[in-house]
């Protein structure tokens, strides 16, 4: 892992793989010193925003290096099940580029345990990492409006659009689950570190 500079109020930890990043984020989040105000996980990095009155950049860097040495935190993570109708407009095409039938894609997508690596793009839009073999490119052209509840695949992730927005993911299904509600105490149904399963709706 490497620690990279990010101005006078943050440092960026960079890891080699998504799995390593997810493990490091869990370890960091569980042992956050006062003065580390925010941890923002992403695909290969964790950004630590600090209050320089409480912790120095140097001390935050040292904490990132030391914590990285701790092995993946064991324990049971929170989990959520999302019911999905596998009726997305890109289902057949996505199965074709993966070299499998639509039924096999559905069975592998719904049979896997996914883990939330990070949230980005929009409030509550979780990037879920799962089994190898379901990696697909984004659509060549983004859609102007992807309906809320659309379940998609892109790169090494699956994700669910919490609300209607433009988007380039391959859409394989739809859910009625509410992913984001800012009036709830926990506004995002899925948070980094949580495990997610998809249940096939007829």
């Amino acid at each position, binding site marked *: 892992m490497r620690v*990279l*500079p*990010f*101005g*006078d*109020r*943050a440092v*960026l930890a*960079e890891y080699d793989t998504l799995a390593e990043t997810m493990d490091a984020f869990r370890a960091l989040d569980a042992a956050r010193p006062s003065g580390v*105000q*925010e*941890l*923002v*996980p*992403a*695909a*290969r*990095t*964790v*950004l630590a*925003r600090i209050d320089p009155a409480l912790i120095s*950049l*140097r001390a935050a860097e040292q904490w990132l290096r030391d914590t990285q040495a701790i092995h993946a935190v064991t324990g049971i993570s929170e989990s959520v099940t999302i019911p999905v109708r596998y009726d997305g407009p890109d289902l057949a095409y996505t199965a074709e580029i993966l070299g499998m039938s639509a039924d096999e894609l559905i069975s592998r997508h719904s049979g896997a345990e996914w883990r939330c690596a*990070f*949230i*980005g*793009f*929009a*409030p*509550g*839009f979780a990037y879920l990492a799962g089994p190898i073999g379901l990696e697909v490119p984004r659509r060549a052209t983004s859609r102007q409006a992807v309906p809320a509840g659309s379940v998609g695949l892109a790169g090494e992730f699956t994700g669910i659009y919490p609300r209607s927005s433009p988007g380039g993911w391959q859409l394989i299904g739809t859910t009625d689950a509410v992913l984001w509600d*800012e009036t709830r105490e926990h*506004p*995002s149904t899925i*948070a*980094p570190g949580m495990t997610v399963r998809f249940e096939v709706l007829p």
Partner: protein
Amino acid sequence: MSSLVAVQAGPNTLVQDLGRPGLAHLGVGSAGAMDRAALALANRLVGNAPDAAGLEILFGNASFARDADTWIAATGAWGSVTAGGRAIPPNTATLLAAGETLLFGQAANGIRYYLAVRGGIDAPPVLGSRSRDTLAGIGPAPLVDGQSIPIGPEPEAPIPPVDLVPVDAPTTGEVTLELRPGPRRDWFTEEAWDVLMSANLRVSPRSDRSGIRIEGPALKRSNAGELPSEGMLPGAIQVSPDGAPTILAVDHPVTGGYPVIAVITDESLDALSQVRPGQPIRFRLATGR
């Protein structure tokens, strides 16, 4: 409880407080006032708590009235501001009489006025803040003409007896911003760094609360690779594939896939928020660490 009425809402007037930091891992940025020091000063002048909400008034051309006497303070941008036709000085608490119109003319120095009203703007908080996040669409919608804005109860603190606040008008000349190298400086050529630190740069009119675009020579990459999305913060200077830098501002996306060549210091963010389209800027390397 009586409300403040936005007689003319102006082109883009938003309710802002100090934002909702700490939710980036859920995809929500901090938002909050672009010029935090100006909002904090306005609140202090009328005896509000530092986290009270005020109005961020872009460019001016906005007017307000209330049917009760009200202490107000205007900070940030400088321009013609009048109460009942009387000019009121910036950075001073003023009693707006019931029925009088408070009029913000076109800003001449800076671009964002802040209006604090004693009691604070009492819009419903979302995720702990009354700030409008223009990118995520969270928080109170931009004001519209004729809208009534609820005002909170009278705070306990009195109006502080301040005669003069030594805050200069935002400059109309060149603005110097301090920066430090960013995480992806090594994705750019040495020449790109020299251009960033020495070229004549200007703020683009295509700037808003999510990012301030900079016009100048293209910053050339030495690494053409694709960057996996990583966490972003206000002040990060992201460079798009055509070499154009954008300084992310408070309503930025929480993650981004363009490399960050440098990050401006926290202190420089307030100055950046008042830079007008077309105004020249210069970067200087921050000292110490």
